[in-house]
Structure formats: structure tokens, C-alpha cells
């Protein structure tokens, strides 16, 4: 298994990451892109701001990959998360998983993004026209 994990301050280059996961042994690439929606809780979003505890975020991402790779045959996986300011439509996160077969690809890709949202120290602030809020902070 080859793994590429990064948190970046510039735009995520999906095309390059996608090309990177390609492998002649893979029959399936499942990719997830998380983008900034133009609304949240029925309010119009102006932009997002992401901050991360960088070294730990990378470690936690690696833990997610190591955990799931114990149960599934993964050929390559690339995870890149954006930090800093993002406009509506911007790519917040991209995850691409190359596996021999597709069923495991869907399972692995979904596991990574679901777990990322629970354990990786990255915080998102939604900025509206009339205020801002740290997402998930309150129940």
C-alpha cells in the first residue's frame, strides 16, 4: 500500500492526486470530494476557514488508513485536506482510493471521510454575511 497524506494551504490539485493513485493492479478508484456549499442551516455561506493542528492531524489521518488497511486490500490512497480560507465551491478535502475491486473501494473511502470528521484535529468555521460559527462546536 502506498499512502499520500497532506494538509495544504493552496488549492487541492485533484487531477494530480487522481493520477497518483492509478495503478495497473487497481480495478477501482473511488474518490470523494468535499466542497463548500453555498448554504448551511438555511443561511447563505460567504466562505469557510479551516485550521488544523498539523502534525497530529497527519498522524491521525495515517492511523485511519492503517486501521482500515488491516481489513481491506488497498493499493493506493491519497488524502489531501485544505486549510485556510475557502470560497463557496472550493474543495475542502479530496480522498482517492485505488483497490483491486470496487466494493472495498467504497467501504474504505467512506470509512476514511467518516472517521476524519470524528477524529482528525481540523476545525471549520462557517462565515455568513451576518456572523460566523465554528462548526460542530455546540450540540
Amino acid at each position, binding site marked *: 500500500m502506498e499512502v499520500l497524506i497532506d494538509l495544504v494551504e493552496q488549492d487541492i490539485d485533484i487531477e494530480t492526486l487522481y493520477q497518483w493513485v492509478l495503478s495497473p493492479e487497481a480495478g477501482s478508484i473511488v474518490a470523494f470530494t*468535499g466542497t463548500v456549499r453555498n448554504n448551511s442551516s438555511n443561511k447563505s455561506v460567504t466562505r469557510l476557514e*479551516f*485550521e*488544523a*493542528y498539523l*502534525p*497530529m*492531524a497527519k*498522524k491521525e489521518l495515517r492511523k485511519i488508513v492503517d486501521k482500515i488497511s488491516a481489513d481491506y486490500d488497498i493499493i493506493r490512497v491519497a488524502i489531501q*485536506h485544505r486549510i485556510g480560507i475557502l470560497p463557496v465551491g472550493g474543495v*475542502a*478535502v479530496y480522498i482517492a482510493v485505488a483497490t483491486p475491486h470496487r466494493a472495498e473501494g467504497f467501504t474504505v473511502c467512506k470509512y476514511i*471521510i467518516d472517521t*476524519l*470528521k*470524528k*477524529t*482528525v*484535529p*481540523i*476545525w*471549520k*468555521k462557517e462565515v455568513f454575511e451576518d456572523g460566523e460559527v*465554528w*462548526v*460542530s*462546536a*455546540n*450540540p
Partner: protein
Amino acid sequence: MEIRLIAFGVAKDIMAGSTLTIQIEEGATISTLKDHLVEIYPEFNKLAHLDFAIKEEYVSDETQLNVLDEVIIIPPVSGG
């Protein structure tokens, strides 16, 4: 002993700053630290939960603090 705290996300807003050095009794645990924090900043009580990390790893409530520890305050994460 002195413990250095580093805050992210909403914790930074609650503490009005990203770092804080506090005095805490020898042998105190994360749980004690949390109680201290909530006492100083009652806003922390409003969070869904509050986690901590030392040396880039999550720590449990029972983890004992050591002098010179740098404790990261991790409010609910929201990446992705």
C-alpha cells in the same frame, strides 16, 4: 506545577487566545485540568465534548500531567 495549554478552533475564541499557562497541583490529571478550565471559562461547558492531546496523541481523562507538558485543547473537530 506549570502547564502550557494550546487551543484551537472555538477553544481559542473562548480563551480569547491560543496559548495559556496555568498553575495546577502536582499529579493532576486531564480531568482536573478540564475542571479548572470550565471554572475559568464556563463557555467550555456548552461544547458537545472537549478532548485533549499531549505529544500529538489523544489522552484520556485519567492521564496524569507532568511539568513541562504542552496540552492541546481539542474542541469538537469539524474537518472535511
